[in-house]
C-alpha cells in the first residue's frame, strides 16, 4: 500500500432535495488525492464537478459514503475548521470572494480565525503575496485589479493558512487566456513546492497540465488517467460533451496531412517542440 492519501473519497452519494423531490448529483464516487498531486476534474455542466469539489473541504456533506482529509472525517463538525485550513477553495467569480478593502487585509482575513500571532501573520501575508506574485499590490484596493490578479489574491488568502491542498473550482472560467496563464503559473509553482492541487475546469488545456485527469459523467467517474490516456479517448470525450485541448486538435490535423507527425500531443509546449523537431530537419530520433 502507498502512503495514506491526502484526501480520500469513498462511495460518495449526494442529492439536492426540494419540494419533496430528489435530484441525485453524485452517485458513488471513490477517489484519492495524494500529497502534492495535481488532479484535474472535467465533465460537462451538471456532471457533478463543483458538487464534488465542495465535498473536499466539507462545504457539502455526503448523504452516503465519506470524505476524509488526512484521516479527518468531514462529517464530524469538530474537524471542519482544521479541514478547511488544510484544503482551501477558490471559486469562479473573482468579485465574490474578496472581502477586505485592501489586498493585504484580504489575504490576512482567514488567519484571524486561526489565532495566529500578529507578527507571524505579517510574515505569512508577505510569503503568500510573494507566492502569487502580488507583493507590489499589497496596499491596493482589490476592486481595481484585473480578474486574474483578484484570483491570485484569493489564492494568496488560502496560502496564508499554509494548506496542503488547493481546490480551484472553475477559478479560471471568468479569465481570458492571459489571466489563465497567470493562475497556471501560480499553480505550477505551488505544485512544485509540494502543495496538492485539485482543479475543476472546462479548459482542456488546463487539464492537460495535471498529473491525473478525472472525468465525471452523471455523478460517476467515467474516465481516469494521465492527460495523455484520457485525451486519447476522443470519441468517448465527445460523447461526454468534452473535447481535447486546442493543441491536440491542431496536432491531429497536422497528423492527418503528414502521418509521421504525432497526433497525441496535448500541451502547447509539446506541439511547438514537435514542430521544431520536424522542421529542424536533421535531428535524429534515437530513442526507441
Amino acid at each position, binding site marked *: 500500500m502507498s502512503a495514506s492519501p491526502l484526501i480520500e473519497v469513498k462511495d460518495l452519494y449526494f442529492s*439536492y432535495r*426540494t*419540494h419533496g*423531490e430528489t*435530484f441525485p448529483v453524485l452517485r458513488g464516487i471513490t477517489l484519492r488525492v495524494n500529497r502534492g498531486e495535481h488532479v484535474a476534474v472535467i*465533465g*460537462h*455542466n*451538471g*456532471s457533478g464537478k*463543483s458538487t464534488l469539489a465542495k465535498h473536499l473541504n466539507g462545504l457539502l456533506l455526503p448523504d452516503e459514503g465519506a470524505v476524509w482529509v488526512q484521516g479527518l472525517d468531514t462529517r464530524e463538525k469538530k474537524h471542519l475548521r482544521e479541514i478547511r485550513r488544510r484544503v482551501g477553495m477558490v471559486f*469562479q*467569480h473573482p468579485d465574490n470572494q474578496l472581502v477586505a478593502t485592501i489586498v493585504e487585509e484580504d489575504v490576512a482575513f482567514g488567519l484571524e480565525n486561526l489565532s495566529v500571532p500578529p507578527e507571524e501573520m505579517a510574515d505569512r501575508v508577505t510569503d503568500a503575496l510573494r507566492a502569487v506574485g502580488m507583493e507590489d499590490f499589497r496596499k491596493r484596493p482589490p476592486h*481595481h*485589479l*484585473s*480578474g486574474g490578479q*483578484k484570483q491570485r489574491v484569493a489564492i494568496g488568502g488560502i496560502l496564508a493558512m499554509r494548506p496542503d491542498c488547493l481546490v480551484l473550482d*472553475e477559478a479560471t*472560467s*471568468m*479569465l*481570458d*487566456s*492571459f*489571466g*489563465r*496563464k497567470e493562475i497556471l503559473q501560480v499553480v505550477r509553482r505551488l505544485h512544485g513546492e509540494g502543495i496538492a492541487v485539485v482543479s475543476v475546469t*472546462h479548459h*482542456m*488545456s488546463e487539464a492537460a497540465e495535471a498529473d491525473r485527469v478525472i472525468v465525471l459523467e452523471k455523478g460517476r467517474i467515467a474516465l481516469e488517467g494521465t492527460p495523455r490516456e484520457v485525451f486519447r479517448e476522443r470519441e468517448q470525450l*465527445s460523447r461526454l*460533451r*468534452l*473535447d481535447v*485541448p*486546442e*493543441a491536440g*486538435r*491542431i496536432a491531429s*490535423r*497536422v497528423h492527418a*496531412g*503528414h502521418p509521421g*507527425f504525432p497526433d497525441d500531443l496535448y500541451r*502547447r509546449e509539446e*506541439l*511547438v517542440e514537435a*514542430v*521544431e523537431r*520536424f*522542421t*529542424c*530537419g536533421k535531428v535524429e530520433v534515437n530513442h526507441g
Partner: protein
Amino acid sequence: MREPFLTIRNLSHTYMKGTPLEHVALREVSLEAGRGECLAIIGHTGSGKSTLIQHLNGLLLPQSGEVTVDGLHLSGPKPDVKALRRKVGLVFQNPEDQIFEKLVGDDVAYGPFKMGYPLQEVRERVRWAMELVGISFDEYKDRPTFALSGGQKRKVALAGVLALKPDLLVLDEPTAGLDPYSRNELLNRIRELNRKEKMTVLFVTHNMEEVATLADRVCVMAEGRVAAEGTPREIFGDTRLLAEHQLGPPEAVEILHALHRRGHPVNPGAYLTEEAAGEILSLIRERE
C-alpha cells in the same frame, strides 16, 4: 447610406461625479453596429465594457454624447426606455443574479408574461427559447432552478432574454463557465440567430475563442476609450496590440506566436484550428 442599427457618439460617463470618489468610466466613445452585425467588445477589467453595455438598454442614460438604437434616441430629456427594452435584450454575467423564479419554465416565461403576451404565445416563446439554448422544454420546465448547475443557469438566463425575441442581443461573457460542448452549441445558436434571424449581437468577452468563432468585428477598449477596432484577423495578428492591452489570444494564435518567435515564418493571424494546422503543415513540407 443606411442608418446603422446602433450608433454611439462621443459617449462619456463618470461615476460619483463631483465626489472625491469620482471615476471616469467612458471617455468620448464612438461606435456603430449595422443591422445583423456581430460585434465583440474586449478589454481589461475596468476598461469600461460593462458601463458601455449598460447604456444599451437604458440602465444608464448618457451623461454626454448620444446613443441611438434603431432610430430611438436615448440622449433626449425623456427617452422611451420601455420601447428600448422591447428592442434590446441584455444578458448579464452572473446567471444566478437573473434567476428568481422557483421553476425553470416560470423563470423563462417571466419577461414575455410581463410584456402581456397571451398565455399560449408565452408558452410557445418559452419552448422556442429553451430549445434554442439547448435545454429541453419538456424535461426542464418544471425543474427547480436552484438545482441547476452553473452552466444550466446561464442557459436559462439567456433563454429568458431570448423569449422576448429582441432585435439587439447584448451579452456579457456569454460562455464563461460552460463546458466545451455547451460553449460550442451556444455559440452556434447565437451565430444562427445572428446570421439567419438577423438579430444584431453585441457581446463583451474575455474569451478570444469566442471572438474568433462569432465576431465580424472586434472593438478593444482601454481606460474608457476605444483603443482599436478591426476584424478578428487584424486584431489577433497584431502582437504588439495584444501585448499592450494584455489580451490573451486564442490558443491557436499563441502556438503560432511561439513558433514565430522561434523564427518560423508562420502567420500568427491564422486563428482557426484548421488554419493553424495548415500553417504548421506548410512549415513541415517546406523542409522536406
